[in-house]
């Protein structure tokens, strides 16, 4: 019996430990008189690990600046950066942790469309604003009270790419190679819509499975269809593989891709073969002299580590700038929400943002009660293989195709 008593005591002690872990909710989750807790869910491990740190660095720099200049209505921002591992399951774990344990007020960034979809009900239930990145149109169409997209989505970029091609060469024969997932299919839908809007069409469509790096059959299919422009709704490794395949075939075909491939590592992968590669993106290259870029660079110098970030020629600058777009939108929304901060006040604050000046770094930000996406505009960039940089060849424009 003594043995049993000892074990019983052990279990009771365990139960007491659990009791100690209990958390009691405050009035507004994540908000005190002196602090607002915000979460940034990025990929610090897993297949998209490369994308997470630049976003987190932008968030840290911006938050340091905001806190240094008095915070938002006297409240400092307490930033919680969490690894979401990009997959739906891992994103769910991260979101639960920040919402239920850390008790953040809002999720100002979440990388990955499927993961963002998976955590949407959790955010709704907890009345937490969610800002998804890599966002698909479904996040603002039909729209959700708690979801804001401070980013031009892939659909709009694909429309812009097709319109740019047809504007330059009205008789262009366009083909598309796209990843067979939500990201790629949204590019395909945008391309189809823009081509149809301009009374044209896509000559060939070639999907590929995630992880494919041999594009010989896809490129052969494009050549057989007689295309002279290929849209690539692909990620960096796949774009690099297509560029190499193009060089191997000795084929003078124009390639035009999306923002995810507009990073310096492309030059490391394909060198001068990248020359002439076009891409559509909502972010200006960090080497340009736009006022918004200058401002961000100054703040990065003051609060961050420029040698490792923006001054590093191999740094994926567009992700850093994307991070700034997100956190600045959130901070502006918090400012407009006023001192009496509630989730509903933040929604109203964000919805009241009109043409917030990003200084040419990315399109200005506009939200509204019926518009939870900040912009439809994007730039067209061209790769310069010699200088290993991307140059702007066409400024910010909204597609004419209905969005």
């Amino acid at each position, binding site marked *: 019996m003594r*043995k*049993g008593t000892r*074990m*019983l005591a052990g*279990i009771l002690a365990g*139960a007491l430990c*659990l*009791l100690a*872990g*209990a*958390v*009691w909710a405050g009035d507004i989750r994540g908000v005190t008189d002196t602090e607002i807790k915000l979460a940034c869910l990025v990929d*610090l*491990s897993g297949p998209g690990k490369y994308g997470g740190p630049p976003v987190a660095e932008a968030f840290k720099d911006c938050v340091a600046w905001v806190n240094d200049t008095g915070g938002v209505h006297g409240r400092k921002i307490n930033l919680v950066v*969490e*690894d979401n*591992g990009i*997959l*739906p*399951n*891992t994103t*769910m*774990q*991260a979101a*639960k*942790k920040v919402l*239920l*344990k850390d008790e953040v007020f809002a999720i100002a960034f979440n990388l990955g*469309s*499927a993961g963002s*979809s*998976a*955590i*949407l*009900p*959790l955010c709704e*239930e907890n009345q937490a604003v969610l800002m998804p990145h890599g966002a*698909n149109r*479904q996040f603002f169409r039909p729209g959700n009270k708690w979801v804001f997209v401070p980013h031009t989505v892939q659909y709009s970029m694909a429309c812009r790419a097709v319109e740019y091609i047809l504007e330059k060469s009205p008789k262009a024969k366009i083909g598309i190679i796209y990843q*067979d*997932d*939500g990201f790629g*299919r949204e590019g395909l839908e945008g391309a189809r819509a823009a081509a149809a809007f301009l009374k044209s069409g896509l000559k060939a469509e070639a999907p590929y499975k995630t992880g494919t790096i041999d594009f010989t059959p896809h490129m052969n299919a494009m050549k057989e269809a007689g295309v002279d422009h290929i849209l690539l709704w692909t990620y960096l490794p796949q774009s690099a593989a297509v560029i190499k395949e193009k060089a191997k075939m000795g084929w003078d075909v124009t390639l035009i891709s999306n923002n995810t491939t507009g990073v310096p590592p492309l030059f490391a992968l394909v060198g001068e073969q990248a020359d002439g590669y076009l891409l559509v993106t909502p972010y200006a290259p960090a080497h340009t002299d736009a006022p918004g870029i200058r401002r961000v660079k100054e703040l990065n110098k003051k609060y961050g580590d420029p040698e490792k970030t923006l001054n590093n020629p191999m740094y994926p600058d567009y992700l850093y700038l994307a991070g700034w777009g997100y956190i600045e939108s959130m901070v502006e929304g918090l400012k407009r929400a006023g001192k009496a901060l509630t989730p509903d006040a933040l929604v109203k604050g964000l919805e009241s943002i009109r043409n917030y000046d990003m200084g040419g770094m990315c399109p200005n930000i506009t939200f509204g009660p019926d518009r939870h996406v900040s912009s439809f505009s994007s730039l067209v960039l061209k790769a310069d293989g010699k200088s290993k940089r991307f140059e702007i060849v066409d400024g910010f424009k909204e597609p004419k195709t209905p969005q």
Partner: protein
Amino acid sequence: MAEHFKISYRQDMALFQNLWVRIWLGILILLLLMAPWFLSRYPLSILNEMGIAVIGALGLNLLTGYTGQISLGHGAFVAIGGYSSALLTAKGGIPFLISLPLSGLMAAGLGLIVGVPSLRLKGLYLALGTLAFGFIVEYVLFHWGLTQGDMGMAVKKAQVLGFTFKTEKAYFYLIVSLASLAALGAKNLARTKIGRSFVAIRDRDIAAEAMGIPLARYKIMAFGISSFYAGVAGCLLAHYQKWIVPGAFDLSLSIAYIAMIILGGLGTILGSILGAILITGIPHGILFLTDVLKAGYPALSGLVVDFKLGIFGLIIVLTLLLEPRGLYGIYSRIKIYWKTWPYRY
């Protein structure tokens, strides 16, 4: 010591072997009933995840641990259960109370079909066959218009007799009740003729057949029962998370379930429960560790994030090295230690 010997078949077959087991179970039930009143939403959400995993792991252990049929497609059956219930409730307007068993039956039906090749395939070949099934299911979920591709679909909240499950606390009671029922069902099944036939097939199928056990019937039945459990787990997962995406049911989920039953203890009900708790708990434990380290040792915290998968693997390897019988083996050793204390034998 006489109390430790079983001197009748009735004692040997008893569901709960002695008074102490009943007392401990009573305490466990009491603790589970009280837990939502003391725990915050975050630990409750982890317990809910664990409860759902327990149901799935029990199913796989009946197939792999008891019958010796390996399956790398368990995650696919979980997905079938989840999507069946999501579609039945959303498109068919069927109440959750009916869609719950129906989603289990849907998974069981497909499990019976997948079980047919098991009559001709064994070991690695069967593993490959079930793996292929998992890929087919994943492909269909990604490409079928009804399931809305990789962005997934919304799932209604669970509702029983007009009561809507909205909170972690409400789901906790639902999940724990069903997990307990599942464990009780599995424990009961294991001591019936069916359970003994499963074990006979696992130990030596030719000998089992020679003893008059119809291999075809029992192997297919094992697949069906296992898939039923997986389907119910999937249904609960879908209604608990209120969103379902195909990416959540890839090969890694099937491997996680295999890890649960191997680490917990093959061919034991308690092992399935312990394994499910451990495997579901490790990622949360790592999150906790990185949080603790973040303040004092940010570099070390970053390192933990970097080697997250490695740490996960290391825990599994170490557990298997130190106790090949899994957590159930550790539990058995502790039990014997207490039983014989202060003597070593």
